[in-house]
């Protein structure tokens, strides 16, 4: 198994910094959804990870902890993520994205 980044929606959606989306070295990996936070009653949208693209460098953890002082991202073993976004389940809309979360082990393993 291997580590991937995992964003705590409750903490992330309390601020609107979006810093991790700008510092991830991988393209199309940390996505931002305007609705996935507000739908749950939080103030802002939330960032989330396309775990099939994440290489596990943890650069976003440093950015979230040190630059944003948000502590919303933790590295987690991929088989311990209950639900996560994968590229096939991400939909692009006008100025935002939306993901249908699923068990990543089932989707990636297929």
């Amino acid at each position, binding site marked *: 198994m291997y580590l991937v980044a995992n964003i705590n929606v409750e903490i992330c959606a309390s601020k609107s910094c*979006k810093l991790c*989306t*700008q*510092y*991830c*070295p*991988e*393209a*199309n990996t*940390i*996505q*931002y959804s*305007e609705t996935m936070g507000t739908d749950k009653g939080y103030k802002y949208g939330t*960032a989330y990870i396309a775990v099939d*693209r994440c*290489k*596990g*460098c*943890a*650069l976003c*953890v*440093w*950015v979230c902890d*040190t*630059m944003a002082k948000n502590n919303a991202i933790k590295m987690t073993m991929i088989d311990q993520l209950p639900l996560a976004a994968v*590229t*096939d389940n991400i939909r*692009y*809309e006008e*100025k*935002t*994205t939306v993901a249908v979360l699923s068990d990543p082990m089932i989707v990636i393993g297929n």
Partner: protein
Amino acid sequence: MSLDYVKFSGGFEKFMPKEYRDMVEHGPFGKKISVSQMGSFKEILEEHPMCAGCAMTLFIRLAIIAFPNPEDTITVGTAGCGRLAISQAAIPFVYGNYGDQNGVASGLSRGLRLRFGDKPKDVVVMAGDGGTADIGFQQVLHSWFRKERFTTIMLDNEVYGNTGGQESGMTNRGAVLKMAPLGKKFEKMDMLQMAKVAGCAYVATVVPNNPRRVESVIKKAVLIAREVGSTYIQAYTSCNIEYAIPTDKVMEDAKTVENDRYQFTEYVSDEAKQYLTERYGYKDYLPKAAAPAAAIPNKA
């Protein structure tokens, strides 16, 4: 070389992979996008084999987002790590022999001007420190002296990262590397000064720990290269493998190096300032309002 080349051929849409459909429908082609929108549109850089946590990858990602017209841009590269990612973007990429990237770009840039006239087609060279300052040095300098109108970006990781850690001209004096165990004996080459002497219209250093600055610098360099002359950007993009930087500390290292020896510098020629102001509405270079005359102290 237009918006047409990313569209689907009739009847083929349903056979294209999801990533391609997303790029055509929600990519940056033909739109004005910025780094503040990252994460909410489909980027044209796709998956690539570069190392986890690589700062060069981050810089390339930001650079491709910053291109003013990605549908009218061609990138030119050479051997080195960077080409592994640059070639995985949905913009044409020319892979030259080692070191000839600025020669290739010179011909390409001239040919595009003959073919398309005044319609801007941007040529951007992205090569490593070895390709730019060592093996391609002669062609780089000559393209600058000839005032070829394209942008040269050096991805300066201060080592030959792809071949096991040999010192390059851009390695710092004293740096100990796997293939330079006694430490480098010479100073780092001052390519910025050489670019200015050779007559580049725009010269800047940048570190990818400030995405907005990277965006601004690349936009300016590409726009100036359309009409004024050669432009040069030197970007510090650490090699976390050869310099043993833990991947989660890559941005901390970038910050340290920026404060130490890679401070942001920008040189814009007077002609380029005038061009940016008149053609693209940049307000940074307008003459400042005259400051009130300093009071002359009364002589007692």
